[in-house]
């Protein structure tokens, strides 16, 4: 069993913060497809379309039949550890700082032999359950876990480098006024976050659930209006050095297309929150988090953006809101690039219509705020970067993968009040 992770001691201000040193991040173009699946928490390898051979490492051609029709497919996650070692030296600074480090050869049930990181609870030559996750370089890697859950399994030193577990971490939830924000806070408290900073804009205005929110263990209510640069900067000055996870729950949603609006005031409000708000947060909190990507057991580790799935392709029923979401999505890609090498994951949750007042006329299926909150915490605990939540979002993402230009035209035909 794994020793339970202890709450990290208070940081010694005299000591220099350990700087992030990424593990090797160079990959071939084909291997990046593996990373892409890993970012979704999926274990996918190339399958030969002609002879069904499962292929690893990623290739340009099937080594059995020379077919070049290789398709990425999810594979069964079982395997067997057939050789293992504990490294005590490494030429790479990242690993050198984290020795000893277990690696081993796993025979996947799907066929190939792979090299993988090995969880501390996996015994010699045992059956294992494989996961694919992005590591601190942002690229996908394989890790062998015990076949059955073990005590404190998530606290394993090597596994924790792949996850963003909120346990003993300090989290900022940018908007606590909404049901979504409050559900997120509750889920984080349950997951063992040591401190939950909750942003409240215009705190003099009453809001539902305020008393319950203040009573959650570890919660600290903070004034924060992400449409106000000074407010964002002031909060960052206060807690930026101890924000390990940032979850941006603030959003500004209004129905309406461009022609249904008069002037740009509403669109500007949408941009102020959804796009410029995100940008203010990035500028105020990003550099500090990036510098703390290796700062011990409660290092900075994740930035969560919640985005309407229509950020991928515009839906005119919420036409201008969607446009601001698309801008935010693009900015989150920029952020992911800027965090590369720092060990901080940008978690993008693409969700279908939320069960809330602004989306009240939309038909089901919808995503409840609690479900979205649970999905955020699940993604953090699992180290998953790209989440698609709810049947509508899943449907849109599937169509987007098929052909984004077809999706664009499909969405034009979607009737009022109903997506595709």
């Amino acid at each position, binding site marked *: 069993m794994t020793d339970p992770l202890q709450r990290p001691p208070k940081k010694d201000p005299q000591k220099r913060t350990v700087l992030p040193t990424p593990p090797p991040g160079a*990959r071939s173009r084909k291997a990046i497809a593996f990373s892409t699946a890993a970012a979704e928490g999926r274990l996918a390898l190339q399958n030969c379309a002609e002879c069904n051979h499962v292929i690893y*490492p990623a290739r340009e051609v099937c*080594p059995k039949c020379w077919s070049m029709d290789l398709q990425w497919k999810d594979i069964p996650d079982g395997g067997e550890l057939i*050789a*293992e*070692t504990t490294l005590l*030296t490494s030429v*790479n600074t990242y690993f050198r700082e984290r020795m000893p480090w277990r690696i081993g050869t796993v025979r996947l049930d799907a066929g190939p032999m792979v090299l993988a990181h090995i969880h501390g609870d996996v015994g010699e030559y045992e059956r294992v359950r494989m996961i694919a996750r992005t590591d601190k370089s942002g690229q996908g890697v394989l890790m062998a876990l015990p076949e059955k859950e073990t005590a404190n399994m998530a606290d394993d030193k090597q596994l924790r480098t792949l996850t963003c577990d909120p346990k003993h971490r300090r989290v900022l939830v940018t908007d606590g006024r909404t049901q979504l924000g409050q559900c997120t806070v509750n889920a984080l408290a349950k997951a063992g976050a040591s401190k939950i900073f909750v942003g409240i804009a215009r705190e003099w205005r009453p809001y539902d659930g305020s008393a319950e929110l203040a009573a959650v263990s570890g919660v600290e209510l903070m004034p924060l209006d992400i449409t106000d640069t000074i407010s964002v900067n002031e909060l960052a000055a206060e807690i930026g050095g101890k924000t390990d996870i940032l979850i941006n729950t603030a959003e500004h949603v209004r129905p309406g297309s461009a022609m249904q609006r008069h002037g740009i005031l509403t669109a500007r409000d949408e941009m102020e929150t959804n796009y410029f708000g995100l940008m203010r947060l990035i500028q105020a909190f990003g550099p500090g988090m990036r510098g703390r990507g290796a700062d011990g057991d409660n290092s900075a580790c994740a930035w969560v953006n919640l985005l309407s799935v229509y950020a991928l392709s515009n839906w005119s029923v919420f036409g201008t809101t969607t446009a601001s979401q698309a801008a935010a999505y693009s900015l989150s890609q920029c952020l992911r690039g800027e965090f590369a090498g720092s060990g901080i994951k940008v978690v993008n949750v693409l969700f279908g219509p939320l069960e809330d007042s602004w989306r009240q006329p939309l038909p089901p299926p919808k995503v409840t705020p609690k479900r979205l909150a649970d999905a955020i915490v699940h993604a953090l605990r699992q180290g998953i970067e790209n989440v698609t939540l709810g049947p509508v979002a899943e449907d849109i993402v599937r169509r987007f993968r098929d052909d984004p230009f077809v999706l664009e035209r499909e969405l034009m035909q979607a009737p009022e009040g109903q997506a595709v």
Partner: protein
Amino acid sequence: MGQGKSKRAGYEGVVVAAPVSVPYERFSPEPAHWWLAKALAGLGKRAGLSVDDIDGLCVSSFTLFPDTAVGLTQHFGLTLRWLDHVPTGGASGVVTLRRAARAVQAGDANIVACIAGDTNHVDSFRAMLTTFSRFSQDASYPYGSGGPNGSFSLITSHHMKTCGTRREDFGKICVAQRANALNYPGALMQSPLTLEQYMEARLIADPIVLFDCVMPCAGAEAYLVMRENDAQAQNLPYANILSTIERHNAFPDDPVQIRGGWALDRDEFWGMAGVQPEQVDMLQTYDDYPVISVMQMEDLGFCEKGAASEFIQANTLTYDGTFPHNTSGGQLSVGQAGAAGGFLGLVEAIRQLTGEAGDNAVKDARIAAVSGFGMINFDRGLCTGAVLLESGQQ
């Protein structure tokens, strides 16, 4: 198709000569070109040849970038009619010999200089590992970046588990090679090693300890391939080539490497020469880790798979022992000078068979087996080869 055995031509009339080793240095500010030039100049001096006498060149080097063998022709002032660049690392000695011998035999070249060398700057080993191969970049380097230590610890532990080899056996190989190195002036390791020291050594990657690992360094090795009568005319002592084998990516479905291509080709190896393993006076293996030397002993047929422990314990492995092995100290004690490591055993064998081995001479040595192994592309070494040489001295 293509499976029918055609009889391979022998190597009659082609010989190897002029063994040259440029003494190794742990770190060198000089580029690979300097080391290769030093080796080539050494060949010229040893054989009494000038730039105009050499019409073929075969090069092996990891650190020559941005150049290849092509750039060296102009750099070294060579006008050639035959040129090759061999990227097979630890198998490069055997592979260059095979290439060059056929070229000389066919008349495409008269005298081929085979040179291998690499420099070792302070950070070159790490730099080489990060870009070693696409598969290692995608699928092994991100897992701890242990480099060869990681790969070979898995191969070693698997061999111990399935073949019953023990750390004492690996230790005996290392200790004997160190004893050999004490008489070889070019070796970087010049202090004696005991089995006790080996058994208690610092762990690097379980079960591999410090003395199982080679020390990366700078150095170069070289030899000539030429016609027998040219060597005689030049008054150069030489060795004849009795047989060779070469194989790449053998046994791709073995879960962990437990054997190499030698196991596929050994009947041909001994058959072509008409020699039995018992007639061999010394074995030079590629020893980037002792487990690979063990694998070569097994797969070439000096002992059966799984009997290496007994074989090693039943023999003495020093140059004056019952089974002389890596008589200059091997890479484990001389150092691993990149691609020159693939030449080390071959050049030492030529020295032994031409009477130039000095204090480490194997008594009455006539036949030497030299084996190569190279390129951990992902999880295993892909290139294997071996050559049997016979002394040309009457």
